[in-house]
């Protein structure tokens, strides 16, 4: 346990040095304690990189989506009430109609079976904090728990389809 702690301290010091400028600018994280703030920043940084890689082709870098083809994430009324579906979708994809901000979308979202729980946690943190205006760290434990549910979902769907 001692090693990760000292590593954490080192990262903390380094990021304090490099991000003091950011600190003064962004007061929307000010209510968080410093440990959470640092961790959130790490998740957001990695989350942004992964989002641009895996999601931005369709949902676009700014999260605006594309016309009535790909739903927006920025300002989307779907994200907060459907966290489990959103998180399962990152690995298993989504099919069928989907209502977002009063518009019915119907484009398949392809699955990404090789994406890890940590990567999903980082992307979800980024998406919820930056696009849904809900400052939160989606933890890897939360993702693990949700993944067990959607894995069951897919399993039971498969069993139902092929009895």
């Amino acid at each position, binding site marked *: 346990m001692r090693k990760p702690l000292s590593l954490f301290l080192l990262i903390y010091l380094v990021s304090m040095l490099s991000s003091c400028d950011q600190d003064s600018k962004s007061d929307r994280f000010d209510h968080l304690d410093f440990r959470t703030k640092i961790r959130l920043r790490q998740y957001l940084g990695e989350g942004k990189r992964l989002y641009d890689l895996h999601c931005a*082709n*369709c949902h*676009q870098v700014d999260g605006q989506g*594309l*016309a*009535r*083809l*790909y739903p927006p994430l920025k300002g989307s009324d779907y994200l907060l009430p459907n966290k489990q579906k959103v998180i399962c979708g990152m690995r298993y994809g989504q099919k069928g109609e989907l209502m977002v901000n009063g518009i019915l979308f119907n*484009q*398949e979202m*392809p699955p990404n079976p090789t994406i890890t729980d940590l990567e999903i946690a980082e992307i979800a943190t980024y998406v919820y904090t930056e696009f849904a205006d809900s400052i939160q760290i989606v933890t890897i434990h939360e993702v693990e728990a949700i993944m067990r549910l959607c894995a069951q979902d897919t399993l039971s769907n498969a069993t139902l389809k092929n009895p």
Partner: protein
Amino acid sequence: MLIGIILVSCSQNESRLPILGRKEIKSVTFDGKIKADTIYHTIRDFSFTDQDGVTISQDIFKDKIYVADFFFTTCPTICPIMKRQMLRVYEKYKDNPDVLILSHTIDPDYDSVEVLHEFADRLGVSSKTWHFVTGNKDSIYDIGQNSYMVTARQDPDEPGGYLHSGAFLLIDKDRRVRGIYDGTIEEKVDLLMKDMDKLLKEYAGE
């Protein structure tokens, strides 16, 4: 005098777009004399079907400049970015009767007229300006590789199953390729639109 000529020829070079592709020099007989004539690379004849089920051939592009690209509706990689960029081109030129857009699907097995219709409708575009076409797969791949000089083929190793370039091709009224632009990069698409204005001016001045 000499400087004047250089200046004129430089500014001409700047304002005229290059003609891309392989050129052939052929001798032709003109007024009883044998002369050298340059044959430029042109887009071959074609016949595809658009999102409204209308047959689209080279005739529709007579006296038009157009932008061509290759995509497929279920593409998870570069196509959505290309379509966002092409939408900018569409928005700028949709009311210009001299400009058309031609998007070829490289997955015609899935991208039927109905699928393309739904796609265009959801993108919010009209077939008056922007034709999404499907047709014979070999013919689409052939015109992609040999006329438009871009990569378009099936490849099971690629995400989505197809390998294709994200290029936008600018074609003039004489079916010649006048520019190739990366349709995934905003600045390159800005350049495309500048070049389209140049090309339109070129014809207006003739």
